[in-house]
């Protein structure tokens, strides 16, 4: 017999369920007094460097219905393209920018909203630059394992054209599902879980 590798198996995922807000955004779900504020509710402060933007949108199911019980987390680089993470070895990120945010989709109109900054470009593994992007992670009732995707910026035409991830999408008509629409400083990014306009989801 050959040696055993001895690796453990990853703990399997389960749905976050309809009451995910109790754990992740208790103040939003009217459980006050346990935590001062919901984690990830604020990403920036007065001193944060970079161009202020709003990222908003909705999650839609395979019948076009609003998903009103999702929680979205985003993760992004600062304006200089550095991540606020111990695993960031290229430099020190803006200490006034968390890089991470968390927001539920509204139980009324299904809209999520982040006040953040436009991220700088970060390198791909081979040194090529990726286009500016924000990584999304979506959990909800009915989603058995969190869905990863990315939002790209519509005005970054030339950067998007050379982005290594976008280049890997075989069906070019699907590229548009990862690009937000822009109006002033507000970017709208609707995520379609299923169907003709299905968003490209990632296995990273």
């Amino acid at each position, binding site marked *: 017999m050959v040696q055993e590798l001895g690796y453990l*198996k990853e703990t399997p995922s389960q749905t976050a369920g309809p009451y995910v807000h109790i754990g992740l955004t208790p103040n939003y779900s009217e459980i006050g007094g346990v935590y001062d504020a919901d984690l990830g509710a604020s990403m920036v402060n007065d001193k944060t460097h970079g161009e202020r933007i709003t990222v908003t949108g909705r999650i839609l199911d395979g019948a076009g219905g609003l998903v009103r019980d999702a929680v979205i987390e985003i993760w992004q680089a600062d304006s200089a393209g550095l991540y606020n993470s111990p*695993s960031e070895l290229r430099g020190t990120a803006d200490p006034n920018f968390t890089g991470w945010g968390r927001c539920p989709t509204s139980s009324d109109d299904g809209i999520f909203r982040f006040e953040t900054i436009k991220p700088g470009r970060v390198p791909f593994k081979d040194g090529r630059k990726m286009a500016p992007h924000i990584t999304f992670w979506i959990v909800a009732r*009915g989603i058995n394992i969190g869905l990863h995707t990315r939002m790209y910026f519509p005005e970054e035409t030339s950067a998007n054209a050379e982005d290594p991830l976008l280049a890997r999408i075989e069906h070019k008509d699907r590229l548009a599902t990862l690009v937000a629409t822009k109006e002033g400083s507000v970017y709208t990014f609707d995520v379609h879980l299923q169907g003709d306009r299905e968003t490209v989801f990632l296995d990273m």
Partner: protein
Amino acid sequence: MSDRTNSKLETGAFFARDRAWHPPAFAPGYKTSVLRSPQRALLSLDGTISEITGPVFGHSIIGELDNDLIHNFAKHGESAIGERIIVHGRVLDERGRPVPGVLLEFWQANAGGRYRHKKETYLAAIDPNFGGCGRAITDDEGHYAFRTVRPGAYPWPNGVNDWRPAHIHFSVFGHGFAQRLITQMYFEGDPMIWKCPIVGTIPDKQAIEQLIAPLDWGNTIPMDARAYKFDIVLRGRRSTLFENRLEGN
């Protein structure tokens, strides 16, 4: 976020996820997954710096009662009602190494199976002294612990007569955003586990057993609380032996 509890420099990409071990997106026995599951294949890409990095939270965010669900919502001098338990364990990666300094968040129903949530209409009563949320950060060896009451089973409108087994929801951060995981912990010996359509989304019996916490008699505190042990395994990082040099250099 800025106080760095993790001093080890970790730069390797993660082991690929075994998606046959996890539940598939489309699992029609769990009805809500039917319209909320992507039908196109996922786009695969080896982890870039956008996924290898992730937020790390300092111990300073944790309040004194954050890991005590019996008291963190209770009126002064009162406690939540129910079977008092301690849930503890370690967060490890697939290589068996402890994952220190990671945030865990927990949420659950009360002893009667009732969640404190405006969408919840189950007729079992709310416990005025139980909120149902808690959090902890793993220590240098990956340990975490919290104190709570054992949640009750509760009915849900999936099949005509479906009931969830007693469970505690867990949200776990690793050191990279690609390690992000939400799961549920079940209790040893609960016959409801094997009837549940959400548990049943997981195809492999061994994978289901990985979510069942054994009664940990050794850590039970006499005349106070029983203990359950629940270890969590996150994706492993590759060794960086050949990954420090960019291709072409």
